[in-house]
């Protein structure tokens, strides 16, 4: 993304949401914006409808757990298919209570992506139409992709499978 386009994008966000951008930088080939968590859905909706940006394609939506900072990052990647620009927006949520509004109001595709983020990281999306586990079993108690959960411990003794070994 060229510098002019980056400035344009930042100004589009700033004209409606002042001080929402914490940091703007290039990450390899991706223009990355770190955003204050409160306004994320409004900003994405603004970028979706604004004639100068029109980011109308949601490429990815997923969570990352940073145990050292005790934070969960939500990463949104948007794509403008007309001008072929891609941007990445990030917000950081506290790991003990990760709550953020749902993006399903803007993108239908966010439905399962958010369910996946909930399933693996426990991020609560307020206003989501059907926030329940999607890939794991429903009676699972933990959010398995968080860093505190290791892969299955091979020395476990509470499972005893004589037929197939462990």
């Amino acid at each position, binding site marked *: 993304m060229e510098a002019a386009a980056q400035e344009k994008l930042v100004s589009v966000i700033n004209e409606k949401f002042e001080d929402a951008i914490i940091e703007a930088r290039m990450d390899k080939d991706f223009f990355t914006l770190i955003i204050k968590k409160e306004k994320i859905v409004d900003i994405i909706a603004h970028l979706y409808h604004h004639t100068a940006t029109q980011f109308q394609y949601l490429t990815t939506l997923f969570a990352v757990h940073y145990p050292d900072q005790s934070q969960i990052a939500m990463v949104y990647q948007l794509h403008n298919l007309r001008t072929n620009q891609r941007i990445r927006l990030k917000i950081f949520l506290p790991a003990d209570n990760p709550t953020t509004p749902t993006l399903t109001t803007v993108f239908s595709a966010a439905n399962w992506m958010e369910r996946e983020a909930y399933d693996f990281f426990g991020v609560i999306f307020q206003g989501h139409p059907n926030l329940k586990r999607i890939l794991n079993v429903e009676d699972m108690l933990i959010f398995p992709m968080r860093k505190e959960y290791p*892969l299955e411990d091979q020395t476990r003794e509470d499972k005893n499978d004589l037929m197939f070994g462990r």
Partner: protein
Amino acid sequence: MEASADIAPKVIREEKQYSYLNLGPTHPATHGIFQNVLKMDGEVIVDSTPTIGYIHRAFEKLAEHRPYNQITPITDRMNYCSSPINNLGWHMTVEKLLGVQIPKRVQYLRVIIMELARITDHLVCNAVIGVDTGALTGFVYLFQQRELVYEIYEEICGARLTTNIGRIGGFERDFSPKAWEKINKFLNEFPVVLKEFENLLKRNRIFMDRTIGCGGISAERALNYSFSGVNLRAAGIDYDVRAMNPYSSYEDFDFIIPIGTNGDVYDRFMVRQEEMWQSLSIIKQAIAKLPEGPYHADVPEFYLPPKEDVYHNMEALIYHFKIVMGETDVPKGEVYHCVEGGNGELGFYLISDGGRQPFRLHLRRPCFIFYQAYPEIIKGSMLSDAILTMSSMNVIAGELDA
């Protein structure tokens, strides 16, 4: 007469009853482990609730506990109809993180393999559309050709279905003369067969009546659902990663991106069909323009040294040990790389904290994203159309559940 008039209103007054049908998890018509609880009004689907995750294998978690070169076999198991694309997409992601310059020859060889994989992927899907509309002939006939492609894979990497093809930085060996022979054989034989298959279905009145207007989705809805690949192009949007963000020298080749108009089963079939022709053309161009040069880049930390060097050369021994034990550190960074997989934009979001394993690897699986539109697409259609819609969207369970 009066007695029957008494009975008649009673029947009408009875409340409408819906029946519930469990389609799946293991139903032969769904070509994989999918469950859909269908709310049916007679044979019309009123509503459906998909359940997924039956073959979830926690790839993203597994990847956080493996060195980079050991993640390649995991990616095989996503879209197993075109696993080389997954493998090479992953290699390119790591190369992007490392900032390695890949020789032109490797890029062209990769294009050849990826296009072969695209052909097999589309071929299976289109053949299965034929099966679900009642034409088993094309399926059996095309699978012979898929076998030829699998023999090419065998010649290049030794495996057939889950290929684990290539290495980070290139290929473990150059294509052998036998491999070239097989590729040429395939290029000679396949167009004839594909043409025959096309003649079987393309203008077949029964097939057209069955598929046109079945399982359609509008371009707006497809975009809002983040469709990609054939399903999006069939709806009329010309988004192809190969053209928008060329990787592995795709900018050197001429090809057409076919698009449909209605996004229905017939359009998807036709787009896939045309893409196979385009893939054939790309392979021919790549072979014609294939440059000379090394078949791997200079990345000693990831590319295994020749075995003789390991025995006689200290450096090579160290690198060999480090690679085999998975002890190579990588630079810190965050990269997103996407390739045009069999089903659409296959993305790898890799976060490295400088360790030996990824800090986080997110896999953008196109199937997972577009399958959520399935209830909306099949609403109001017949049960048999729902099955046809699923097979024409090419929903692959391995990619869906990861």
